[in-house]
C-alpha cells in the first residue's frame, strides 16, 4: 500500500494546497510483488525414490511429474519446482528442508 501526503503550507500563505506527493513504496512492499521460485539442487546421497516421494507430498504432484523433476535435479543439478509469492515459496522450502532436501528460494529476474 502506498502512502500519500500533502506538502507543507508556507507561513503567511492562504488556502493554497500543493499537489499531493506520492511517497516511494517501501522496499518490503516492492519485494512482495516480485515472484520467487523454489529450486531443488542435486545431492548424491538422497535416493531418487525418496526425492520423488517428497515432491509428491510437498507439492501434491502426480508421480509422473514428481519423477520428471527428480530426473531434472539428477541430470541437470537443479530443478525449479514451483514459482509464486514469497510466503508460499518459503513454506515449500521449509517443507523440503524438513525432508532434508537441498532447496533454495530465488527471486525471478
Amino acid at each position, binding site marked *: 500500500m502506498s502512502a500519500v501526503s500533502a506538502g507543507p503550507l508556507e507561513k503567511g500563505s492562504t488556502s493554497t494546497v500543493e499537489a499531493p506527493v506520492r511517497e516511494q513504496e517501501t522496499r518490503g512492499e516492492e519485494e512482495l510483488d516480485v515472484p520467487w521460485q523454489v529450486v531443488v539442487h542435486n*545431492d*548424491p*546421497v*538422497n*535416493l531418487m*525414490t*525418496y526425492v520423488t*516421494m517428497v515432491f509428491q507430498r510437498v507439492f501434491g504432484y502426480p508421480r509422473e511429474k514428481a519423477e520428471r523433476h527428480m530426473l531434472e535435479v539428477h541430470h541437470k543439478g537443479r530443478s525449479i519446482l514451483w514459482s509464486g509469492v514469497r510466503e508460499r515459496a*518459503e513454506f515449500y*522450502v*521449509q517443507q523440503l*528442508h*524438513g*525432508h*532434508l532436501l*537441498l*532447496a*533454495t*528460494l*530465488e*527471486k525471478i529476474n
Partner: protein
Amino acid sequence: MEICRDEDTLQISDLDPFLAELLRQIPLSANSAGAPAAEARLFAQPSAEKEICAEWKSYVEPELRRLFRSASETVADDLAQLNGNEKALSNCTLHIPIEHADAWLNTLNQARLVIATKYNFSDEELNDHDRSPIGSRRDLGLFQINFYGFLQEFILREISG
C-alpha cells in the same frame, strides 16, 4: 536378514549381531552436533538473500532441529527392542509400527547425510554399491550409507503401496 510387512508393522527379522549393531547406531550416526560440515548440510542456507537467511536461522532452524530430534527419538525408542536382550549374540527381530515410517525415513536420511559429510565421499563412491570388503572405518561408513539406503527403499515401497 529378512524384511517384510505384517499388517501395520514392518519387520526386520533374522538380524545378525553385526546388522543389529548398525541399526543401533542410526540415532548416533544421525547426530550432527560437533560436526560443522554435517550441521551445514542438515541446516543448509535457504537463499542467497541475507535477510531471509537471518530470519530462517531465528525461526525455521529451531523448528527443523525439533523435527529431526523428534524423529531420531522415535527411532531410538523402536530400537530399544534390540537392547538388553540376553540373546544379544543370536539373530533377532525388530518390529517398526507403520506410523513410525516417516520418522525412520527422516532419521535414516539424517544418518546417511551426516556419514557422507563426515567421510566426504565422492559421487563415484556413493554409486559403488558393490564395494567390499570392509577394511576401514571409511569403508564401514559407506556400507552404513548403503544399508540405511536399502532400508529407506524398503520403507518407501511399503508405505507407497
